[in-house]
């Protein structure tokens, strides 16, 4: 539950943030499931967007179309004015190199060190031979150390990733995203596997990334109090469509009831 120290001089991790634009984006999976129905969104650089909705509402699909992990079936996806849909795999890798991503299940390689996991954030900028021999550039390693320091886990740099607690693993994942010097950070249910105090710590880290480094952050949540507290703007999803788009802090329980299609219960809050 330690919060990352705010060391000055880590501007290296920041770079000019990108906006995100979706225009009439639909996603249909190969099995016929519709993930998104003609979604249009305009996200300005530096916003912290909370995407809320029940599971299956399309939040995960939305976030994955931004970095092309899920290809848009139709419509236009742009990050920082660059087209994601229809990009070649090489171009897609280059764009992804600028977009950090954090997952619900942390997705670390458990049997290797924290450092090696964080260095995955540099792969898009590392030649293959360096990857094969594990010979990362000194500058890349320094970026990894700085990112770990920012989330308060530098002392754990040589530990095995699987030896860390859930909250620590998620912080390592955030450090991995930061090491990319990202212009956007996507977070897919980053606190759904964590206990309430730890969840808050991780959300604080994401907010700091947004406020101190100015990085655009798009975070999926299903808990309305977290969305209200941390988001600068909230997007509500239901059945693959955007059903709410407005300021997060002033969103009412009635707004949530409209997004969820049912009345709000205690289970929809982190603190009951």
């Amino acid at each position, binding site marked *: 539950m330690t919060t990352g120290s705010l060391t000055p001089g880590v501007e290296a991790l920041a770079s000019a943030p990108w906006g995100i634009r979706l225009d009439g984006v639909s996603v249909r999976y190969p099995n016929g499931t519709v993930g998104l129905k003609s979604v249009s969104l305009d996200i300005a650089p530096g916003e912290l967007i909370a995407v809320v909705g029940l599971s299956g509402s399309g939040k995960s699909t939305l976030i994955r179309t931004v970095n092309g*992990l899920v290809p848009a079936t139709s419509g236009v996806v742009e990050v920082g004015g660059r087209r994601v849909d229809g990009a070649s795999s090489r171009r897609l890798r280059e764009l*992804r190199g600028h977009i950090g991503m954090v997952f619900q299940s942390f997705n670390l390689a458990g049997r290797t060190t924290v450092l090696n996991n964080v260095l995955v954030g540099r*792969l898009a900028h590392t030649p293959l031979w360096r990857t094969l021999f594990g010979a990362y550039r000194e500058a890349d390693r320094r970026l990894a150390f700085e990112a770990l320091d920012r989330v308060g886990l530098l002392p754990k740099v040589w530990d095995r990733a699987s030896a860390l607690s859930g909250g620590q693993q998620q912080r390592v994942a955030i450090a991995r995203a930061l090491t990319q010097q990202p212009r956007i950070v996507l977070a897919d249910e980053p606190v759904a596997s964590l206990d309430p105090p730890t969840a808050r710590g991780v959300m604080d880290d994401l907010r700091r990334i947004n406020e101190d480094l100015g990085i655009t952050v798009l975070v999926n949540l299903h808990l309305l109090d977290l969305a209200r507290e941390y988001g600068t703007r909230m997007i509500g999803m239901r059945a693959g469509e955007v059903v709410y788009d407005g300021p997060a802090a002033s969103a009412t329980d009635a707004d949530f009831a409209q997004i969820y299609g049912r009345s709000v219960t205690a289970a929809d809050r982190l603190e009951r």
Partner: protein
Amino acid sequence: MTALVVPRRPKGRWMPWTAAGVVVAVTVFMCLPGVGVGLDVAAIARNWQQGALRIGELLTPDWSFFPRTVGPILETLQMAVIGTAVGAAISLPVSFWAARPTNPFAPTRAVVRGILNVIRAVPELVYAAVLVAMVGVGALPGILALVLFNVGIIVKLVSESIDATDLGPLEAGRAAGATQTQINRAIALPDTWPAFVSQTLYVFELNVRASTVLGLVGAGGIGLLIDAVRTFYRYDQLSLVIVEVLVIVVVLDTVSDAIRRRLV
């Protein structure tokens, strides 16, 4: 306290004793003369004395034969070490090509798997026989046969363990803009390493055992000696060789078990 209402056990399921009955019936049927293999149990009674003689010799190893076995035993171990090392080195990249998470491109995966199925289908003794004809009698054809044998086993087992792996970390690599090869090296390899080392130790043991057979077709190692003493009906000497192989296998088993426990 109210009585529990337990639902009636559903009928029409296969009972274990039904299955056992079927197995016994099929086995007996296979033994009947005419339809099956035609077992002549009476032959055991007629010939048991000859067998008893051999067993008697096997129970009294000829320890004075030991000096002559040292060389071939060492050759067997050398063949096993070289065969395992080369086979494992080839297997590691091939395993990644043969598994879905580390090679999403189906056609190349199918080609690699097809070739491996062929390699596994051929017994190592056949490889050894063909290779002896190609490169001559000695350790080399034995080592080559072991390499093929090892690649077939290691790739099969390791690629299956990759197939069962958690896809999340690999997706994280993809999201960070890494190429598949980078993902395989930086993320899949560390998680695959224990399975790879474990299977390599396993085939090393298999290699020691296999080389007792490879010698029968002239592919070097202790098998050559086994073939020689067997031809002269020296069961007391054969017995010593078997004891030596047993000792080696037990030692290897203990050592590899200790290594595996440290893998985690």
